[in-house]
């Protein structure tokens, strides 16, 4: 049994919240630079340059790239041979978020109640998912998820007879409807299969993948390529003002489903595609 102190977890979460918001991943930067070479719209090119410049400045000043520093969505991978000491694991994650968002000068964007809408003041509670695995691994992944892109996400329970064409149609429709709002060029996370909530989670987890890495199943890898091509024909372009690069990548996660069901969820992420992983 490996012991892990909650104070180690708290300080790791705090650091992750700050870094994920201030330092954009190398894969994202490479994808934006590539987009700059394929974008034909002068306006679109200018926007991409502005985004790249913004990201350089944010990193230099350790300042958030965007004022929406998101909901702290945190995925815990907990080996069953790890013993957490010093307190409650979920409270430790929330304490790390509290410290990260407060001491890192990040925006507090969480309201305690969806109708009464009073801000909790410290960006907690985090949205936490726990995967229990064999062994003694302990991994934390954070996706600070912005509201603009989250609001344009959608889920549909398709009929199995609608098949791959139905799934493609729904993904394209969702991206088209989203237009400029999710801050294109976007990253499109797609969850196909599972239950109602399972499909949504699959689509969110699609953003844990390295930008542009393909699904290991060649069938879905091909579908990702096809969808990316179709999405980039929509003409939405950077910031939705017209252009060739609407999406940087499409990531699909598939899962087993009921014989009656074909759920499809589309979780859109903005061009920042913020992510950070730590193994403790």
């Amino acid at each position, binding site marked *: 049994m490996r012991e892990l102190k909650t104070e180690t977890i708290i300080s790791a979460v705090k650091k992750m919240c700050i870094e994920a918001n201030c330092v954009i991943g190398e894969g994202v930067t490479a994808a934006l630079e590539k987009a700059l070479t394929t974008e*034909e*719209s002068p*306006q679109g090119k*200018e*926007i991409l340059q*502005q*985004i790249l*410049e*913004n*990201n350089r*400045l*944010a990193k230099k*000043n350790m*300042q*958030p*790239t*965007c*004022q*929406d*520093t998101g909901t702290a969505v945190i995925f815990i991978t907990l080996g069953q041979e790890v013993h957490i000491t010093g307190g409650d694991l979920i409270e430790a994650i929330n304490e790390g978020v509290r410290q990260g968002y407060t001491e890192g*000068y*990040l*925006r*507090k*964007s969480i309201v305690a109640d969806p109708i009464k*809408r009073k*801000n909790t*003041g410290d960006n907690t509670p985090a949205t936490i998912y726990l995967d229990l695995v064999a062994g003694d691994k302990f991994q934390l992944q954070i996706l600070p998820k912005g*509201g*603009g892109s989250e*609001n344009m996400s959608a889920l549909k329970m398709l009929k199995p007879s609608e098949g791959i064409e139905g799934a493609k149609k729904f993904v394209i429709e969702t991206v088209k409807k989203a*237009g*400029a*709002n999710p*801050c294109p060029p976007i990253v499109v996370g797609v969850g196909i299969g599972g239950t109602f909530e399972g499909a949504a989670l699959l689509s969110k987890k699609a953003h844990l993948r390295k930008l542009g890495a393909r699904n290991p199943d060649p069938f879905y890898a091909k579908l990702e390529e096809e969808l990316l091509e179709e999405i980039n*024909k*929509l*003409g*939405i*372009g950077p*910031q*939705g*003002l*017209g*252009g*060739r690069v609407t999406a940087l990548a499409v990531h699909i996660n598939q899962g087993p489903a009921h014989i009656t069901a074909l759920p499809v969820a589309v979780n859109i992420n*903005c*061009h*920042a595609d913020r992510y950070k992983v730590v193994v403790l």
Partner: protein
Amino acid sequence: MNKDTALALRTPLTDEVLAELKIGDKVKLSGVVYTARDAAHRRLAELLNKNQIAQLPFDPQGQVIYYVGPTPAKPGQIIGSAGPTTSFRMDAYTPQLLAAGLKATIGKGARSPEVLAAMKKYRAVYLVAVGGAGALLSQCIKKAEVIAYDDLGPEAIRKLEVVDLPLTVANDIQGNDLYQEGIKKYAIA
């Protein structure tokens, strides 16, 4: 931003200046702008609905609202990161603010047909900034002061003084829409 071709604009905005603007024009905006998001708009709308215009935190005549909820300023900073939020959430409140004299809004993303019609009717424009460029845009903000609704935290109304804020005209007073035109131009059937 191509600084050579951008038009320098200063707030408050007049009908004469706005008449010159066309969709796609680059603008460098300087002067006072007010921040407001969802929660602040709701309060502004309540006052307008009760015809209590004098009680608004600022006189909307000729003014500009920037849809932004900045991150907190670090010590020594004027303001934290401060890029545009999605404008359509404010669509329900915008026509009545335009009717009260507001001349421009700054945000990101397309507006509703009702807002487009109101902009044409009241001769106002919609200017867009690059979403997700909050660190860069914050450098154009030279002064920031909370003037109302402090309890709303990031959603409080701030009076900002901006210099050369880089924007693009997305809707002009003729009722043209850059989002529709831009997508039409690049869509592949």
